[in-house]
């Protein structure tokens, strides 16, 4: 468990958070620029000194009224937005920089392990890190942070300075990191797709305050949060791969609310995958549609309806055991179909994005 309480007041900016966060998995700190995500991360790292703050990480006090552990004595790994490899050191010396500075008994993460995990084999013997591509530099920087065997890994928009191709190159590595090393991660981002793909827990920040904190699935399916208004708002579903249909090149995914057919995935039968169903890809019908080309149809109950602008409404649908779907329809459709909370409807899912 990580307890963080910070308040800072700058002339143009206020940070005021008090939150308990899980001491495992990936926690995304999500919000628009200026919402205080980076400042919060810097407070946790000890790079920013918030007087009167409190920070307890898995039972250890890093900061309270009488103690302030300076950054270099906190067991953190920090990955900056811009890859920050030291230009005067070779890639190998960069990787070893933090590793050399921790007591040998604490070196739980090994160099070979990091090289393997982040695909650094070809890079490690390069002498001048400025010749690396942006993605390579960031991978090396992540490796360097991991080699301090941190008890908390802080990542400040590690992909935002990269082009789309480099992003796609790094994301699988980040997922492996999540699966193979059991280091809790705080991941700052303003890209919902990254967050949906990587995070387990989501903290929503707005103007220096945490306006929501919860599991990723729960938080993304709330209509009362700013995330619901995003163009790519949508629900998250964890589903199991049940069967591959080789003839039509499709895969059936099952979850508590039913099944979804998606374009054939590589994952083996039985493995768990994460899919995103965007609100704009879901429509509703009050009677079971016949002769529709849409294969994915789920029995659902309307849980909540909210106006979305002048012409639309967002609805939260319950499909199965605690699983939610979001949908966005026109206000006229709602009135014509007389949709109201509690009603049983059919949700038609036009498209499903497999994200992990």
């Amino acid at each position, binding site marked *: 468990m990580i307890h963080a309480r910070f308040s800072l007041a700058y002339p143009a900016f206020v940070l005021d958070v008090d939150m308990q966060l899980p001491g495992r998995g990936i926690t995304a700190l999500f919000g628009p620029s200026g919402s205080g995500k980076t400042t919060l991360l810097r407070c946790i790292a000890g*790079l920013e000194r918030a007087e009167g703050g409190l920070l307890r990480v898995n039972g250890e006090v890093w900061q309270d009224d009488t103690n302030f552990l300076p950054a270099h004595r906190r067991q953190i790994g920090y990955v900056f937005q811009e890859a920050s490899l030291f230009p005067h050191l070779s890639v190998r010396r960069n990787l070893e920089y*933090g590793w050399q500075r921790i007591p040998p008994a604490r070196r739980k993460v090994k160099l070979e392990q990091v090289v393997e995990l982040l695909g650094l084999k070809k890079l490690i013997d390069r002498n001048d890190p400025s010749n690396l591509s942006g993605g390579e530099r960031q991978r090396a920087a992540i490796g360097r942070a991991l080699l301090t065997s941190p008890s908390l890994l802080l990542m400040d928009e590690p992909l935002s300075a990269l082009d789309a191709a480099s992003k796609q190159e790094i994301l699988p590595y980040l997922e492996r990191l999540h699966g193979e090393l059991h280091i809790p991660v705080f991941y700052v981002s303003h890209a919902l797709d990254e967050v949906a793909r990587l995070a387990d827990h989501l903290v929503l920040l707005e103007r220096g305050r945490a306006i929501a904190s919860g599991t990723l699935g729960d938080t993304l399916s709330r209509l009362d949060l700013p995330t619901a208004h995003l163009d790519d708002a949508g629900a998250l579903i964890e589903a199991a791969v049940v069967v591959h249909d080789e003839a039509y090149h499709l895969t059936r995914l099952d979850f508590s609310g039913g099944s979804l057919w998606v374009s054939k995935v590589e994952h083996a039968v039985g493995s768990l995958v994460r899919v995103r169903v965007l609100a704009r890809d879901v429509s509703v019908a009050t009677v079971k549609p016949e002769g529709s080309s849409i294969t994915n149809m789920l029995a659902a109950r309307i849980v909540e309806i909210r106006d979305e602008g002048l012409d639309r409404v967002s609805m939260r649908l319950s499909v199965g055991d605690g699983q939610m779907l979001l949908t966005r329809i026109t206000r006229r459709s709602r009135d014509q179909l007389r949709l109201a909370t509690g009603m049983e409807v059919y949700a038609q899912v036009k498209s499903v994005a497999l994200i992990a």
Partner: protein
Amino acid sequence: MDSAFSAADLSAIWLTIKLATVATLILLLIGTPLAWWLARTRTWWKGAAGAVVALPIVLPPTVIGFYLLVAMGPHGPFGQLTQSLGLGLLPFTFAGLVIASVIYSLPFVVQPLQNAFEAIPEHALETAATLRASALDTFFSVALPLAKPGLLTASVLGFAHTVGEFGVVLMIGGNIPEQTRVASVQIYDHVEAMEYAQAHWLSAAMLVFSFAALLVLYTFNPAGKRK
């Protein structure tokens, strides 16, 4: 070559090199932390401190020499201190010349170092901190290596500027063979004695040395090659 430099000339050259070497070493020891502090501090009197360090650039050397002479003299505060410590008086000694040179050349060492330190991005230092490096460790393992071009400039300029000083030496060192008679003073003596040939040789040596020092600086300093 026998006639090129007299024994007195050679002794003056040797004394000059010794003085410049000692002064440069002391300058780097004092100037590096001072430059680091000037580059990093946010105190309101940073401007004043920078101005004091820069004073020798604009002051006539005789003014610096005069004040140092007064301060180090028998009635000056520094002179009384050295006397009470049993060190005697420093004017007209090699030690006095070293102190004067350090003050005279300080801005030429501090300013390139300060510029080099200021050019180091903040996040390089923060990165080091997140990788368990203490402030001192960061200074030696990140700041100093990144400031290497500035360090080279500072050393060459500090050395060359000390070699080239005249006014301060004359005020504080006088003209004592093998103690304070450096090359620039020796040239002055030659000219006064109308020994133009000797003055030529020594002047040419100084010219070649100064050019070589600057050549090293402009050729090998990587600062100019970076963006």
